[in-house]
């Protein structure tokens, strides 16, 4: 059918060619002629491609499939037709108008680049950043680490709702003396790199944490719920394990390196923020699970050396397991190994122990429990 008028750009000059377009249905091609064209163009239907997502939907802009160096395998020439009947007929006759063509070798490119990107990210997250964090954590001067630890504890206090720094710290003198005695008993004969500073915070959480630089905080809730002084000693030994391994500093450094990386990988799309938080949680969890397991081993060794019964540790983990109840966080999300396994290990260890004595006498234990007044 045709001819109808159209405008043609040859892809070499910006000048417009006014052309006549005829559709030769028998030959299956478009014939384009015009006074400014040196010769008639024959565009076969099978190679015709239409531009998509055009704002002026009534018009049809055509190009040809061709192996050019362009971003898509397309001829640079463009032919625009506005005449509705012709547009409809071409859409009807030419099946491949909306076909997506790829340059040869595209899939290989996707695979190699994809593998390289995944490889680089995995290498960074799981090999290079952890190594770097380990190294940096060992070369940081101790006084800087202590200062950093104090600011961590200050942040923690503020998060727990302290109006002024130091408000949360429990100051019972007899209790602190009992606590110091416990620390002394555990660290006796051990070659520790840090001067330990252990304190109790007035908060109901059943928890304890080790900040960088030898600073350990035990929550009041843990003292209240612990089965006895041996359980507290086990937790303390575990936290000393974190201190000696510089886990807090190391994990802060790792997080600093991996946080930016993760948010870059996952990008910002709807729900992207959730994905980033979840991803960071998983990364963090796998880092810390290793550290927790190592601290458990350290704690058992320390209890054995100090002659403290590790049944207290088993009881404590049993209790934690009960607290978590049936709604166990899946292990890959949790920062701690499963409680039953940890209790089991402590019980196994206790069977091999001989000549253990309670870490604190009854009076001292009561004083420690009452440290917050």
């Amino acid at each position: 059918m045709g001819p109808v008028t159209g405008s043609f750009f040859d892809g070499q000059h910006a000048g417009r060619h006014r052309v006549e377009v005829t559709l030769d249905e028998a030959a299956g091609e478009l014939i384009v002629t015009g006074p400014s064209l040196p010769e008639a163009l024959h565009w076969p239907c099978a190679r015709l491609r239409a531009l998509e997502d055009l704002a002026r939907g009534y018009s049809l802009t055509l190009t040809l499939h061709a192996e050019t160096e362009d971003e898509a395998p397309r001829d640079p020439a463009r032919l625009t037709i506005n005449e509705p009947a012709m547009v409809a007929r071409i859409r009807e006759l030419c099946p491949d108008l909306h076909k997506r063509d790829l340059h040869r070798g595209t899939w290989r490119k996707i695979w190699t680049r994809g593998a390289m990107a995944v490889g680089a990210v995995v290498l960074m997250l799981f090999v290079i950043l952890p190594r770097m964090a380990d190294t940096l954590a060992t070369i940081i001067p101790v006084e800087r680490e202590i200062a950093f630890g104090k600011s961590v504890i200050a942040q923690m206090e503020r998060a727990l709702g302290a109006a002024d720094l130091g408000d949360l710290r429990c100051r019972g003198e007899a209790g602190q003396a009992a606590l110091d005695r416990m620390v002394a008993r555990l660290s006796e004969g051990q070659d520790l790199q840090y001067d330990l500073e252990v304190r109790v915070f007035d908060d109901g959480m059943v928890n304890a944490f080790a900040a960088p630089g030898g600073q350990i905080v035990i929550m009041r809730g843990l003292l209240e719920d612990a089965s006895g002084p041996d359980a507290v000693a086990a937790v303390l030994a575990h936290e000393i394990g974190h201190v000696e391994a510089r886990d807090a500093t190391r994990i802060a450094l790792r997080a600093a390196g991996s946080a930016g990386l993760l948010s870059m990988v996952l990008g910002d799309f709807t729900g992207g923020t959730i994905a980033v938080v979840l991803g960071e949680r998983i990364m963090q969890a796998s880092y810390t699970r290793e550290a927790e397991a190592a601290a458990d081993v350290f704690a058992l060794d320390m209890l054995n050396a100090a002659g403290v019964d590790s049944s207290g540790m088993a009881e404590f983990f049993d209790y934690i397991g009960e607290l978590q109840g049936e709604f166990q966080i899946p292990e890959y999300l949790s920062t701690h190994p499963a409680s039953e396994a940890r209790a089991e290990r402590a019980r196994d260890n206790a069977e091999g122990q001989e000549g253990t004595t309670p870490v604190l006498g009854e009076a001292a234990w009561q004083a420690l429990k009452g440290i917050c007044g």
Partner: protein
Amino acid sequence: MISRLQTGARETLQGHYAGQRKPLFEIAVLTALLTTLTLGIYRFWAKTRVRRYVWSSINDGRDSFEYTGTGLEKLLGFLAAMVILAIYLGVVQMGLYYFGLTLFIEPQTEKQAMMQAAAMGITALAVLPLVFFAKYRARRYKMARTRWRGIRFGAEKGAWGYAARAMFHWLLSVLSLGLLLPWQTFRLERYVTDRSWYGDAPFQQGGKWTALLPMMAQIYMGLLIMVGGGTMAALTSLPEEGAMMAGLGFFWFIAGVVLYRVKAFCYLTTHKTLDGNIHFDAEVDTASLVATVFLGALVVAVITAVVYGALGAGVFLVVMPAVTMGQGAVFIAGILVIAAYLLATAIISSLALVWIVQPIIHQVVEAISVENADELQFIEQRSHDDGADAEGFADALDLAAAV
């Protein structure tokens, strides 16, 4: 539709914008949904489709722009950028964090503790040169993938030069309290324009930076009112009046910033030339542009509220009966709720594009005209540009604007 004003032998082309809300909204919502369902991978194709629509809306009454970028090359560019950024970001951020740690002193007061927290935030500065680098490369890619009348636009390489100049000028602007902002605006625009091409014809930026100075008058006026209000609130017995004045000053300041940007844009556009003899004119009506943005934001807010309200009501209507019908029904209701939620977020994320961004582009395009346009026909094609990283860096750094 055709508007060609013949003035002697000289032809003037007037910019037109043919885009409408509905088709763009359909593209945006559909691609946003696909992006979520593919965990973000489709975003490269989403951006491509939106741009194809917007570009094809821009015309001179006859010939439309064409966006030839592909989603695939954006994905490939992103993957390549990721390899480099993974190494750079990981190492540099950890290094800076360590450096921050070694500066640590024991926080004695609340204030010191806050200062240290802020110091840690400075690690973000590590990406600043990359941000400017990525910005220039993203623009170069956009130019390389824009065609009009079948002829490619293009930009030369120069991302590091741009990053260095941008850092330098930003520093100067900040140190001079904004006084040298026009210098920054002008020099950076000139750097970019003088490296831009249409076919084999170069763009050139003329004019003087000092011409931009008076355009900042309303910004200073706003600042003056703010400071005056603040002083009044602090020193006199009229704290409320002072605070109100400071608030007025703030709005004045914002309006001043918009005014500056629009005026600077018009000045810089009218002082550009293409191929030495093709000129441009830009007469943006600032008041109507501000009104467009304001009304657009209002509409976006209202529709967002309505969509969330409908979502809440829908969830209630679906879940309540399902609970009484047993587990199977609850499962189906759960799927319905998730689907409705995804649709709602896709709609909401598309609103700004349709109600704010597109109307701005519309107004700006229609305010631009090209003088001496018959010279355009002598322009010839330029060769293909591989498009740098196809915005990979900008995307990885979350800088890439939709359009």
